[in-house]
Each structure stands twice: as structure tokens, then as C-alpha cells.
């Protein structure tokens, strides 16, 4: 464990269609925004190398199709995820209401070892849109996140690059922590297994 091997952090971005998943990812990785990203079909990912404290890690950010029915296929990439980012559009209450089902869906498909402590991050996107259109207040969103075990929450604009960098820094940090705890748990399991290898009783005859 002491040897610093190369770390690949797998991050899954989920949320309703049109909330800005592709845009957030592209803003973070390529520092670009385009209003004409096509609807994502299937799945795709971008990678970015970042420093977390003094460690160089590679983040693999998975972008998915927003329409529910496309979730049933190709969830293979959920497995081994280190962090899940839930995105909604602050101007679309429906997309906020859907956060719970996205979260549940992820926990079922990815089946992490310790679902209660698995790191999620919630992003409320499109805060650049005029205030009158806003449907979900910051207060409401934060209350929700608190109720789900203090999920970190950021209000972002992919278009104007607001809080995107900060959000992904937290995502990277939490993902790395998760990755390390998973490794630790695997080691623990291996140790425990050795004990199980030696059954105490033998036969009762």
C-alpha cells in the first residue's frame, strides 16, 4: 500500500435529460461550453488528470443518457465507481424530484460495499438563467442533501463556469477517499478470510 501506484477514479454523472451533464463535464475537462451538445445516447466518458493534495490522479467522468429507459442497458460501467454525481436543473423541479430515484438506481446497479457511506455529490445546474425562472431554491436543495447524509451540494453554471472547478475538486477528493477505503476494506477482507480458512471444530464424530 505504501507504494504510490497510479490512481484511476471512476465518477458517474447521473440526472434527467437536459440538465447539463455533458456540459458540466466538458466545462470541467475542456473549459468549453457549447449550447449545441447533442442528447447523449449510450454512454461516454472524459478523463482528466488532477492533483489531489500531493497525489496525481486520473478522473474518468462517465456521462450517460438521461432518459430512464436507457439505464437498463449498459450499466456495467456503474460497477467500480468511486463517486456518483447527481445533477438537476434548478429551473426544473421535476429534475430535482428525480434525484432520489437516480440515487436509488445507482446504488442498486453499482452495489457498493457500503451504500450508506458511498460518496454522492449533488449539483444544481443552470444558475445563470434569470432568477424568475428558478423553481428550486438553494435552501430546499440543501435541506434535501442534508437529509441524505450530508451530501455535498454545489450550485453551478456550466455555461458560465460557475463553481464547476470547485465542485469537481470535492468530487475528486471524495472519490479518492472512497477508492482508498475500498482498498483498505479489500485488505481487511483478505485478512479476515485467513481466519475463516481454519475451521475450529473439525467433525463431530
Amino acid at each position: 500500500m505504501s507504494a504510490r501506484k497510479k490512481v484511476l477514479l471512476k465518477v458517474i454523472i447521473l440526472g434527467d435529460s437536459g440538465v447539463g451533464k455533458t456540459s458540466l463535464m466538458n466545462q470541467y475537462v475542456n473549459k468549453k461550453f457549447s449550447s449545441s451538445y447533442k442528447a447523449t445516447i449510450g454512454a461516454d466518458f472524459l478523463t482528466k488528470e488532477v492533483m489531489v493534495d500531493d497525489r496525481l490522479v486520473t478522473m474518468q467522468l462517465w456521462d450517460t443518457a438521461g432518459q430512464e429507459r436507457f439505464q437498463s442497458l449498459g450499466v456495467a460501467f456503474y460497477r467500480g465507481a468511486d463517486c456518483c454525481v447527481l445533477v438537476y436543473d434548478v429551473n426544473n423541479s421535476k429534475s430535482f424530484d428525480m434525484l432520489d430515484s437516480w440515487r436509488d438506481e445507482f446504488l442498486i446497479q453499482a452495489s457498493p460495499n457500503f451504500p450508506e457511506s458511498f460518496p454522492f455529490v449533488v449539483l444544481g445546474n443552470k444558475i445563470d438563467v434569470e432568477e424568475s425562472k428558478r423553481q428550486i431554491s438553494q435552501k430546499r436543495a440543501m435541506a434535501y442533501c442534508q437529509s441524505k447524509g450530508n451530501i455535498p451540494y454545489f450550485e453551478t453554471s456550466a455555461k458560465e463556469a460557475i463553481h464547476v472547478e470547485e465542485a469537481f475538486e470535492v468530487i475528486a477528493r471524495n472519490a479518492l477517499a472512497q477508492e482508498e477505503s475500498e482498498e483498505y476494506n479489500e485488505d481487511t477482507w483478505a485478512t479476515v478470510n485467513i481466519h475463516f480458512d481454519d475451521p475450529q471444530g473439525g467433525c463431530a464424530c
Partner: protein
Amino acid sequence: MSAPAGSGKGKQIVYTPPGSPSPPGSLHDLSDYDESEYNTITHTSSGRGVKLLHTKSKVYVHPTRNAKDNIPGFIALVQQKPPPSASSSSTSFASSTIPVHSLLLAWLPESQLGNAYSTYVKVDLIDDSSDTRETYLVPPPPAVSTSASATGTYAFAVPVDQIYSLILRPPNSGWTFGSLIINTKNGDSFPALFFHDKECASTIEQTRKRIRNFDPFGEDGNQFWGGEEVLRWMKKYARVEHSRLERDTYLVEPQSSDEKPWVPKPKDPQDNFAGSSANIKAPNVANIFAGGFDKVFKEVKWNVLERLSRVTNLTRQTAAEIADSPNVPPQLRRLLKTPEVAALQDEFDSARIYLARWAMAIAEQADKEKRKTVWSSSDVMRMEDSELGQFEILDIAVSRDTRDRKPLTLKEWNSWLDKDGKLTRRVDDVKERIFHDALDPGARKEIWLWLLGIYPWDSTLDERKAIMASRRDEYVRLKANWWNELPAKLKDEHFIDQKNRIEKDVHRTDRTVPIFAGENCPHPDPDSPFAEVGTNEHLEQMKDMLITYNEYNTTLGYVQGMSDLLAPIYAVMQDDAMAFWAFCQFMKQMERNFLRDQSGMRNQLVTIDHLVQLMDPKLYLHLKAADSADFFFLFRMLLIWFKREFAWEDVLVLWETLWTNFYSSQFVLFIALALLEKHRNVVMNNLTGFDTVLKYFNELSGTIDLTDTRIRAEHLFKQFEKKVEYTDRKSVQQRETESISWKSLTSVPGTPATPNSTSAAPVGAPPTPASRPGPRPGQRAATSAAIPGAAQKKNEELPTISPELRKLLSREVITAEGQL
């Protein structure tokens, strides 16, 4: 057998074959030394001579395996006087002055030549590149044109126009003699003639001469031998075609019906599997080029890989260094400086993907260097040879040269309609044309309505006008249904969701295509997220059509991806009603892709899984190891028929060819397979995980050559079809053999086996060469099945043809209901 009569000696005649005057000064102009009154041996029995045009000595018949029994002789091409009845017929070789039917190909044992022996020896040694025009008359050879009647002396003379084919097997140095077998049109074969080149004075002389001229090798790179000379004589006077399937076979004066069996037919797979189609080799030049280039590339690749593995950020610099290195071949240097590659370097996501794309780009560039602009059959053959090594090349006819083929224009189409506007062509012919050549842009608006089944193939113009009118009315009615109730509808949460979804998707569908680009209209709904940016009339039409579809197909509704399917149709039609109905028709085929349970997509991915297992097991194993055997990486391509992978214009071409359902209603899966095969080497050498495979295929978007892909796909379909047929035939055979062996095993001892029982035939005694009929097209197939002793052969392991694979052979469209 008497010597030529002397009556005409010295008299000069001008021999002019009927119908074709002799060009002055041609090699065949016999005016100077010609002698009169030679014979027509197949028609008269008088004892005059025939002209000995060419001959070669030390050509043997080997009646037994014992060399002592070999009979030396001469092979000769002689000219007889044409029979009067044939004067105006069957002169097919226009450039020759000697009609084919006046020629005979003969073999005579030395012992039978008598006084003529010296003439034969002399003609053998004549160098016909020198200017001699002397004519030698010899006694007519025996007019024998069937092998059975030649059994006594083996001597024969076959009229050249009776020859079907020549099988020329070149010598295998130090092991076998070169041989020639003549097959006649009535299905007969003459005993093989063996060329003892080292004894033959003329061959020795010709070989020596070639070496002097720095050309010790014949045209195809093999050692020069006597048979080549015979072929050369034949080509002087007759049309001789090299069979494209059998390397050693040459067809003489083939009719189109003769050529047919040599082009594989889908209905007769045995021909191709049992035949020696594996003999076909790629052209040497291409291989040499590819080989050299590959080597260089491999070295460069390792260099790059080593550096990339250290730090990804160095990539661009490394690529630049490589471009400046003097060791880099010019092709590669040119490639590295193209804007595409430069852009690619800016966009890379990980070293491995970058490298894989780079490798592919290099391979493509190398390919382009080789093929220039147009695909030809040889390119396709080479490609199959290198990338699908485990396959035999089964069908060359697939790789049609596209140079002369043009898309179907509206003008041409209209010329196919009669006065009532009814199509006068067979539907299959029309589909074949469109499948291969696609449509001219001006023809799409009309013909897509036929392809998509709005217009029946047997409709008249009046009927089509009526259809169009009623469809327009129907669309207006459907649209009014929801439009008039919009206030109520806007209280329905599902409707609002769908409407918003459509709105979002239309605003991000094909906005780079001119008709969808504008934002000149104010948005009708001030609350829309797009109210600020504006819209245009075509976007609004798109939204209306999709909402109407959502209300029309209530079980499915609008699903993401449909806007991608509608956009090209609307852009071509520019008529909302007709575009709507054309889209609905298309959706009948695509519906299963969008089912809630995703069963349709799952089914297609399973089919692809089976298809790759059958067609390319090695690639399949690799994909499995790379965690990609769920083929999810093809999801986008299959969901919307490669809409995101090809450029706009190419999508139109691809879709209209797919709509023909010409080979299969699921031909799109072969397009996917073609893409996989094209990139198989990159995949197998560079991509090791689910993520890199997915990324690699996603990033192919915008880089795929459609023509190339279509040709490959067609090729693969034909290979698939043959594999299925072969497997089916073999499994029937195996079942039959099993039942025969079972019968013979259970027959009571002492009772004789049934006379026809295959298992009773002697095993291991090959038929003698003289009695074995030469292979004829179409016959070869039957022999492998009929070989005695096949019953004892261990059953071949046959692949499983799953029901999913069988469905690929159907042209019937699979609807959402049909798939459940």
C-alpha cells in the same frame, strides 16, 4: 498419314479467313510463303496437310506411375482449312485473322510422326519473334475429340472451339512436372500432358533467353515453363480468360453462361468451399508495400508507446519529434502534418486511445496511398486476406468497381414509369440498384416515399396522388387533435414532460444543418428555456411532428433518439405531412430500439454477439477479455442507425440503402460488423478494457468512410450467408453419414451389404489420371460429398447457427410486436 501433295507447291496464295480481311503486315498474314490446299481434317479424310503453327517437344503422357511407361510427344497448335459450312459463324476473336474453329490443339507421340518428325522439331525451335513467315504443313493429326476414343495411342486433336478450359499446373521445382489438362465443352477431359522442360530444346532456349533479358520469371513471378508457351499460342488466336476462382484454370472463348459458374452463386456454396478458392492471393505489389510499411510502423509505434506510458502530456511533443525524425517514412510524416491528426492530438483523452486512433489513421493513410481513390476488387481481396485471415475469399463479385456506377437520378427513375406512372422494373432490380448506388439528392424526396412504403411498388400516379392527399388530411387531423386541446393537455404531467423533452431535443438536433441552424423566429412560448435564443420554422415543424407522433403512437411515445431519426427525413421532404408519415413508416422498423424494457436493443446486441462469434472468433475472445462482449459500445450506432457516426450526406446514403432491405432487414448489423472488422487489429493490439473500447468506438464518429464500410458489410454478409449454408449442408451430411454407418453396423453378418451402400466402397484407391474426369465447374462440389470413406471421417465441429443469426437472412422487417 501421307505427305502433303505437291500440286500446290510454290504457288502463292492469299489466305483470307471469311469475314475478316487480313491486316497487311500482320504476323498472321500468310501471303508470302503460304501454300495452298491444306486439309480440314474433321470434315474431310483426304490426305493433304494442315499448317503447324506452333509445337513443343518433350511433352509426355504418363499412362502409369512408372516413368518407364511415359510416352514422349509433341503438343501442337495446327490450322486446318475452315469447313465451308462454318464460313460465317463463330469467329469470335475479332483481332485475329485466323478463325478459332479452324484451329486444333493436338498431342502426338513422337513414334507416330514418321517423316513429319523433322518438321515438328524445326517448328519447335522457331523463334516466332523473328520475322519468319514460313508455313509448315504436316499430316493431319488424328481427328479425335474425345478422350475415350484416344485410349489406344493417346494421340488427339481437339478443335479449339470445342475446348472449354485448360488447367495449367506449373512445375513445382524439383518435384513435379508442369502439366496441362484439356477439358472440352461436352464435359470430357484428356489425359494430363506433362512438360519435361529440361529435355525440351525450345523451352531450354526460351528460358536462357529470358535470363539474358533479366526476366527469369514469367508474368506471375513463377519459373518459366512449357505450359506458358501453350497459353501464349492460345491467346494469340482465341480469347482466353483466367478463371477468377481457380488459379490454374483458363477458360477458352468463354460464353457469358460459361463464366457464370466461375463466379460464385449464393445458391451453390459447395462450389466455393470445396473448390480451391483459397488459392486466390492478393496482388504481390500491395503485399510488399504493406509489409514494408507495417514494419516501419511497428517500430515507430513502440517508440511512441514507450514514451506515452510515462506521461500523457508529452504526447503532442512526442508526435512532433517523430514527424521530424529522418527515419519516418514520408507517408507517416505527411500524415502527422494533416489537420485531422493535429486536431486529434489536441483532443486526445488518454494515451491508449490516442495511440489506437493514431494507429488506425496511419493504417488508413497507408490504405489510401495504395488504393488511390477508388476501391477495386483487388483492394478488397487484399483487405480480406490481411484482416480476416481465417476466412476464404468467397465472393469477388461483391466488390464491384464503383467507377462506372452513378446514383439513381429522378430522370432515370421517371423513365422506368409507364404512362400510368406504374413502375416497369422488377422491384428487386430497383432495390439492388439503390442498395449499391444510392440516390441522387434530387431523387430522394420522391423515391424515399416508395422505399419507406408510403407508395406501394405497383401504384399508379393517380393512386399516389390519392395517397398523398389522404395522408395530408390525416396528418392535419392528428395534429389538430392535440393542438386544439392544448390548454387541457398542458395540465397532463406526462404530456408536459414529453413536450419539454421534445423541445430540448429538437433544439439540439442537427443544428449545423442549414435548415435547422437559424434562430430568426421568436419562440412562441415565452416560458420555454429557449425563449431567449429564438427558433426557426423548421424546428417548430419538427416539434409538432414529434408531439403528433407522441400522441399517435401512444404505447411508445417520444423517446430520445427519435429526433435524430426524423431530422434527415424532414430535411429531405421539407413537407411536414409527408415527412411525418415517412417517419412513422421508418419507426415501424425502429420501434423495437425504443421499447421501455430495451428488449429490442438487447436482442440486436445478442445477435451481434453471435455474429462476431461466428465470423471472427478471435476478435470475439479479445472483446470478451476486454469486458466488451456485451457490445454496449455499439449501442448508439444501432439505436439511431449510425446517425452520429457519419456525416449528414452519408447518413442519407446509408439509410436509403438500408431501407431497401436488399439482403437483410437487419443489414445495419453488418455495417456494425464491418466497422468492427475494419478496426479489429487496433482493437486487438491496443484496447484492453470496456472503457477504452467504448471510447475508441465513440470517437470514430465523423471519421468513418461510408463506401468502404458498405463494401465490407456486403462482403461480410455474403460470407455469413455462405457460412450458414455450409454449416447446414454439412450438418445434413453428417446426419446422413451417421445413419448410414449405423445401418451398416447393424446389418446382419453374412448378408451382403446393399449394393449402393457407401460404406462398402473401397477406400484409398485413387482413380487413375486417365480415367478421372477433369474438374468441371459445378462438379467439384459434388465430389467431396461423394468421396467414399467420407463416412469414416470424424465429424467436423460445426458452429451453431442460432435463431437470431437465421433471422439475419430474412428481408422481413422485424417490428416491435414481431420481436416479442
